[in-house]
C-alpha cells in the first residue's frame, strides 16, 4: 500500500500528469478514428521516448491504451462507426439508443462503465500481477479452442427470429474470416496479395454498420418522412443507473481475465458480455432497440481487458495485444526488462505506472462525462449532412490504415453487402461474430492438432477445455431435456419469442 502511495507521488508530479493528459487525449482521438489504433500510435511515438523519462513515457502510453479503449465507443454510439474492434459490439445497442434520443445516456454509461471497469481492473492488477501471472502460460491451444467453441455456441442466442437468416449471416461472416493465407495456402484471395492478410474486422464492421446504413437511408430518403432524432435528457436517470451497475461489474469480470490471457483479447469478452446481458436482462424486448445493458457491459469489458493485459506484461514480460507488444518494446529501449524482477528492481517505475492507470481512468471520466450531452447534440445535424459526414469519416479511416485505394473498394463492397442484408432482413451480429471467431477458432484447432501430431484427444487434455465442453453440453442439452419433458415453457423457446423483434432496419 505504501508503495502504491509512493506511486501516486510519482504519477501526480505536474510533468507526469501532463503526460497522462496527453496520452488520454491522444488515445481517445485515435480510438475514435477507425483504422488508427492505440498500437500504431504508441509505435509512432516510440522515438519520442528517447527524450522523455521512462516514467513519463510509460504513463503516456498507458493513457493512450486506456483512452483508445474508451474512444472507440463514442463513434460506435453516435455514428454506428466503431473505431476499434473492441467497440464493435457497442455499436449494436449503442447506436439504437442514440437513435431513440438516448445518446447521452449511452455515452455516459460507457464512460462510467469504462471508469468502473478500469478502476476495478487496475485494483486487480495491483493485487494479482506479482503472483497470478504464471498460470496464464499454462493455457494452450486446446483450452482456447474450447472457449471459442463455447462462444460460437452462444451465438445461437443472437441468431434472431429467423434461424435461416441467422445462419446465412453467420456463414457469410465465417466465409469473410476465411480470406487470407493464414494457413499457408491462399484462400479466397483471388491471387491478390492485398488480401493475403485477410480482411480487418474494423473495416467489415464499419462497412456493414455505417456504409450499409448510409446507403439504406439514401435509398429511402425520398420515400419515407424524415425521422427526427428526439432529444432526450442529458444525464442518466435512476433507472439507467440501476440497469447499468450489474452489467458494469459482469463486464469487468469477463474483460479482466480475457485481457490477461495470452490469446484472450478485447473482442471476445465484449461479445460474451453482450450475450450474458441479453440473457439476464429484465427487459429482453429492448435488445435490438437500444438496451442500456448492451452498452454498459461490453464497454466495461473492453476497459477491464486493457487492465488485464498489464498483468502478463509487467509480471512476465509477455505482451498479449499489439499495443502491449509496442509498450514492451519501449520498456526494452530504456533497458528495462519486464518480468518477475521488475517489481523488485524498479519499484518506483512500476508503482508509478500503476498509480497513473488510476489517474488516466479518472481523467477519462472527467473529460468524457461532461462531453456526453454535447456529443449527443451532434445527432441533431440534418441527416444528409450527418450521413455525408459518416461516409467521409468511414472512408478516411479505412484509407488511413495503409493508404491503399483497394481498402476503399473493400469498404464499398461490404457496404453494399450491408445494404443487401438490411434489404433481406439478415441480422448483422452473427456475421460480425463469424468474422471475429472463425479465424481464431481455426488457428487454435490447427495449432492444437499440429502440436499433438494429429491426435484428437489433445482437445480434452487441459482442464479448462473440459470445463468449457461441459458448459457447452449443458447449454445444448438443458433446453432439449426441458422440451422432451413437455414442460411447454421452454426457457430458450420463450427467449426466442422475446427476440422476435430482432435488429431490423
Amino acid at each position: 500500500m505504501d508503495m502504491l502511495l509512493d506511486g501516486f507521488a510519482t504519477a501526480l508530479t505536474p510533468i507526469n500528469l501532463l503526460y497522462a493528459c496527453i496520452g488520454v487525449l491522444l488515445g481517445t482521438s485515435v480510438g475514435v478514428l477507425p483504422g488508427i489504433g492505440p498500437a500504431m500510435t504508441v509505435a509512432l511515438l516510440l522515438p519520442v521516448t528517447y527524450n522523455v523519462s521512462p516514467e513519463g513515457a510509460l504513463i503516456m502510453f498507458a493513457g493512450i491504451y486506456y483512452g483508445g479503449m474508451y474512444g472507440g465507443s463514442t463513434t460506435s454510439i453516435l455514428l454506428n462507426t466503431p473505431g476499434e474492434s473492441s467497440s464493435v459490439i457497442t455499436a449494436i445497442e449503442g447506436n439504437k439508443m442514440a437513435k431513440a434520443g438516448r445518446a447521452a445516456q449511452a455515452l455516459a454509461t460507457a464512460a462510467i462503465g469504462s471508469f468502473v471497469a478500469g478502476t476495478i481492473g487496475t485494483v486487480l492488477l495491483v493485487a494479482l500481477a506479482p503472483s497470478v501471472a504464471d498460470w496464464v502460460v499454462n493455457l494452450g491451444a486446446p483450452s482456447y479452442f474450447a472457449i471459442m467453441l463455447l462462444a460460437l455456441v452462444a451465438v445461437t442466442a443472437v441468431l434472431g427470429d429467423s434461424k435461416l437468416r441467422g445462419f446465412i449471416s453467420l456463414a457469410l461472416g465465417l466465409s469473410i474470416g476465411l480470406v487470407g493465407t493464414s494457413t499457408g495456402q491462399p484462400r479466397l484471395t483471388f491471387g491478390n496479395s492485398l488480401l493475403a492478410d485477410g480482411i480487418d474486422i474494423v473495416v467489415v464492421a464499419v462497412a456493414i454498420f455505417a456504409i450499409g446504413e448510409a446507403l439504406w437511408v439514401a435509398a429511402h430518403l425520398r420515400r419515407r418522412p424524415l425521422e427526427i432524432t428526439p432529444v432526450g435528457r442529458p444525464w442518466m436517470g435512476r433507472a439507467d443507473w440501476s440497469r447499468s451497475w450489474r452489467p458494469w461489474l459482469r463486464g469487468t469480470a469477463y474483460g479482466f481475465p480475457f485481457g490477461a490471457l495470452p490469446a484472450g483479447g478485447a473482442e471476445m469478452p465484449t461479445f460474451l458480455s453482450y450475450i450474458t446481458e441479453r440473457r439476464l436482462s429484465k427487459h429482453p424486448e429492448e435488445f435490438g432497440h437500444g438496451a442500456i445493458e448492451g452498452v454498459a457491459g461490453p464497454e466495461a469489458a473492453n476497459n477491464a481487458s486493457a487492465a488485464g493485459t498489464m498483468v502478463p506484461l509487467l509480471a512476465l514480460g509477455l505482451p498479449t495485444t499489439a499495443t502491449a507488444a509496442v509498450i514492451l518494446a519501449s520498456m526494452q529501449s530504456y533497458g528495462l526488462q519486464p518480468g518477475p524482477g521488475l517489481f523488485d528492481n524498479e519499484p518506483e517505475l512500476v508503482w508509478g505506472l500503476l498509480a497513473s492507470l488510476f489517474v488516466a481512468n479518472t481523467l477519462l471520466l472527467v473529460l468524457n462525462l461532461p462531453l456526453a450531452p454535447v456529443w449527443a447534440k451532434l445527432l441533431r445535424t440534418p441527416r444528409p449532412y450527418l450521413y455525408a459526414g459518416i461516409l467521409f469519416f468511414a472512408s478516411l479511416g479505412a484509407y488511413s490504415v495503409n493508404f491503399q485505394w483497394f481498402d476503399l473498394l473493400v469498404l464499398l463492397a461490404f457496404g453494399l453487402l450491408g445494404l443487401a442484408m438490411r434489404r433481406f432482413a439478415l441480422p448483422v451480429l452473427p456475421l460480425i461474430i463469424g468474422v471475429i471467431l472463425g479465424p481464431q477458432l481455426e488457428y487454435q484447432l490447427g495449432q492444437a492438432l499440429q502440436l499433438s501430431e494429429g491426435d484428437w484427444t489433445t482437445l480434452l487434455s487441459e482442464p479448462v477445455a473440459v470445463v468449457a465442453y461441459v458448459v457447452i453440453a449443458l447449454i445444448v442439452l438443458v433446453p432439449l431435456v426441458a422440451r422432451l419433458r413437455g414442460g411447454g415453457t421452454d426457457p430458450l423457446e420463450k427467449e426466442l419469442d422475446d427476440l422476435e423483434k430482432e435488429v431490423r432496419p
Partner: protein
Amino acid sequence: MPTDVRDPGSRRARAAWVVVLVTVLTAVVAACGVTRGADEADNRRLRMMIPNSPGGGYDLTGRAAARVMEDDGLTGRFEITNVIGASGTVAMQRLLNEREADDLMLTMGLGVVGAVYTNRSDATVDRATPLARLVEESEGLLVPSDSPFTTVEDFVKAWKADPGSVSIGGGSSPGGPDHLFPMQLAQAVGVDPREVNYVAYDGGGPLTTALLGAKIDVGTSGLGEFEGQIAEGSLRVLAVSGEERLETVDAPTLKESGVDFAFSNWRGVLAPPGISDEQRDALVTLLEEMQDTDAWRDELERNGWTDAFQTGAEFEEFLVSQDARVEDTLKELGLV
C-alpha cells in the same frame, strides 16, 4: 425541453454544429495527411517505405536509419510510410511499380525475400536496385528451463530419431526468418525439412507464451525479445545461429556445438528499378555517411543489432545468393 431541428430558433445552433463537424473533420484530415510543404529548398526530400506495421523489426530499423540521416543533417526530411500486407510482398510490389523514382527507399530483409515466394508473387527482390545491407541479427535455439535438451547435440539426436515428435515454434509465418532457420538447419544436419513440425506463432509474444508453458519443445527466434526470460532462467539458449557468439547471451554458436551451419537474419535497403547509376551512388553514399555516425552506432547498441554494412556489388551478390537459397529451401518444402 426538446427542440425540433426545423424550429427556426435553433437554426443558428444547427449551423454552429455543422461548423464544428467540418472543423473536426478537417483537423482529422490534416492530422492524417502526409506532411508536405515547409520544404527547405536546398535539402532533398526522400521517402522511406516500411513493409510491416509500426513497432516491427523493419519499422525499427528503417525509422532508426531515417532518423539518423535527418538528425545528422545528411539529408532533408524523410517521409515514412508503412505499407502493410502479405509479410512485405505488397510493399515490394509497390517499390517495383515506382520505377525510376529516385527519392524512394524500401527497408527490407530476409523475411521479405521469403514472403515474396510463399505469396507466389513475381515481385522478387532481384528486380529492384540494391543499395545496402545494414544490420544482422543472430537467431537462437530456445528451450524452456526444464527441457530435456541441454546441448545442441541432445536436440539434434532427438530430432534425427523422430523429426515429427520435436515441435519447433517460431514467430514468423512460412518464408520468414524463424521458419527458414530451422528448415535450413534441418537440411544441414540431415533431417528432411518436410518432416519438421514447425508451428507459426503471431510474433514474439505468443511464442514466449508457448515456450514458458512448454507447449513446444524448441523455439527459433531473434533473442532481443527474450533477454528478460533468459536472464532470469525461465528460458535457456542452446545455441546462437551466427558465425560469432553474442555479447549479451552466454551460449555457443552452432559451429562450436559441432554443426557446420551458420544463419543470420539481415535487414537492408533497396531502391526502385530503373534509377541511374549516379542516383544509386548518391543514395549509397548517403547510407555510407549514415553508417559512419555515432548516432547510428548508438542505435545498433540500443537495439542489439550487429553492424553488417555492405554495399555495391558485394551486396548485390549477397542478395542473389540469399534469393537462390531461400527459393531452394522453400521449393524443397513444396511451398513454391
